């Protein structure tokens, strides 16, 4: 890859952020992690990432945030030219049915993780979503076989005519 695929975590509680980041640290060598404590900060981080010609592969977003809430932030991202392709996961201890429906319909939410989470759960969701992202974006699956869902990636290679040369 000639550019980086970032994981963005939006969470206002610093201890919780710390825990998520640590749970995902094994992804960090392939997918650098960026963090933001508010939706506004997240917005500017997203812009910076794309400005540096990198991209955001996955956004893990809390719902209850000071200022703009997580679902609204995700909905806004849908109008972002590039970040609309990012996989979006809501990680929250509290979001009403309304909010969740909104997030699914308007922000094309890809997954919902209820707090408290387990590392296995978080790992598998992140793996799955990043795998989907890489396949959707038609990146060379081989670069991600060792860290993401290798069977799914191999399957995507099978379906796309691969050639010897």
């Amino acid at each position: 890859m000639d550019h980086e695929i970032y994981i963005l975590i939006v969470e206002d509680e610093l201890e919780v952020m710390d825990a998520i980041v640590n749970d995902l640290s094994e992804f960090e060598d392939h997918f650098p992690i960026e963090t933001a404590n508010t939706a506004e900060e997240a917005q500017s981080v997203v812009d910076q990432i794309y400005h540096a010609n990198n991209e955001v592969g996955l956004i893990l977003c809390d719902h209850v945030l000071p200022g703009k809430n997580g679902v609204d932030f995700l909905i806004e991202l849908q109008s972002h030219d590039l970040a609309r392709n990012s996989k979006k996961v809501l990680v929250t201890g509290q979001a009403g049915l309304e909010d969740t429906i909104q997030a699914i319909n308007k922000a094309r939410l890809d997954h919902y993780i209820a707090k408290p989470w387990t590392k296995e759960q978080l790992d598998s969701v992140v793996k799955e979503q990043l795998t989907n992202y890489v396949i959707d974006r038609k990146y060379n699956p081989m670069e991600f076989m060792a860290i993401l869902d290798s069977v799914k990636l191999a399957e995507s290679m099978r379906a796309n005519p691969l050639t010897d040369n």
Partner: protein
Amino acid sequence: MQKGFLLNSRVDILKFINKVISDTPDLQKLVVSFNEKEVLFKQGENLPYLYLLLEGGVKLNRENDDGSSLDILTLEPGHFVGLVSFNTGNDSLTTAVALKPIKALRFSQDDFDEYLNNHPRLRHPMQQLMMSNMTDRLMGNVQLESKMHALNQKLEDEGEQLKIAYSKLEDSQQKLVHQEKMATLGELVAGFAHEVNNPAAALLRSSEMLKENFLDLPSGDPRSRIFEIGLNSSPLSSEMVRKRMLEVQKKFPYVKERSIIRKLAQIPEEGHEVIIDQRKKTPIEILVQQFEAGKFIHNIKVASERIANLVKSLKSYSRQDNNEAEMIDLRDGINDTILILSHRLKYLDMEVKMDEIPKTCARLGELNQVWTNILVNACDVLPDGGKLKIRTKTEGEYKIVVSISDNGPGIPDDVLPRIFEPNFTTKNQGAQFGLGLGLAISNEIIRHHGGFIRASNRENGGAKFEIILPVKNC
């Protein structure tokens, strides 16, 4: 005949008429008698006769459309019976029944004309009797009218009272429901608190023991030093982490993994010194891990303390059952309420400045409802990021003032005077926080405490609520 009155009394006239009857055989022919309960005429009949009652009594009653019967008049000797119908030619409005055996003169139309106009002896007494009858009836009418008026008045008063009673009933029913709600909540919280406090305590204790286990290294070991640094460090904001990551990359150019750089960024300067100091001796990963261990134990401690505090607040907040007045610091209740409502207040820009205030005798649980009502109202009207200020101060020696103000749309002028009225709401009746009955109840609670609450609009926009409570001992 008595002087001074235009009319002779009915009894005198009757005496005279009786005398004339005994003198005049023609008249005697007109005398009829009825037994008790005998009917003289019925309602709706056309009356060919007019009776002049000589002895006994007659009751006039009228049957209403709904079948009920109404007594209209009781006629005594000297009264004409059937006067209205006889004079107007209309059907009788009433039924005449003998109350006791009666004697009466029965006039046909011709007879009556004759006696009233031409009879030399009877003409005057008859005319006088006519007049007297008319006057009686008129007087009765006037009395009736005024009686009716009084009755109406009474009716109206009673209706008003009923209304008040009803609204009071409704009020107290709402209060009952509310109390019930709070009681249920209290029970729920008590159970919940017990269940949550146990694991929270276990967490807290475990983190302490973990700490001791980790510190069980020879003193001066860099690992235990960096562990202790970890124990005392709090997580940094993401912006800070970004900034420090850039610094760390310069400071530790030999570290390549981003995850390690991120972890290093969280370590304070003194930790970096230990790491640089140990570069040749202890691998950086081990020291970072040691720091992380300390930090995580710190996080566990902070988080479990938060759980314990939250439970404590919830418990004291919902203390409705034990609603005894006691000496309390108002600020405790306000802080509890802020904590309980933090999921909503989080979106606001809060400024809390609470001056030292003396304790006062109050019911904590009730006051919490007041704070909740006002804060929830503020959350409802304020946009995300709206400003909310909470202040406490003393005024003189005996007054505590709590003011809660915002920079929201303020209270409309037409609403302001009624804002503390029961059942007054500007928001849709719906699932709100569910603990407040609105400002009316707040008003009442404060009044019970001997204080008062007032709402106003601030000059530069936004609403302001002030609660003034007296300082007193229980």
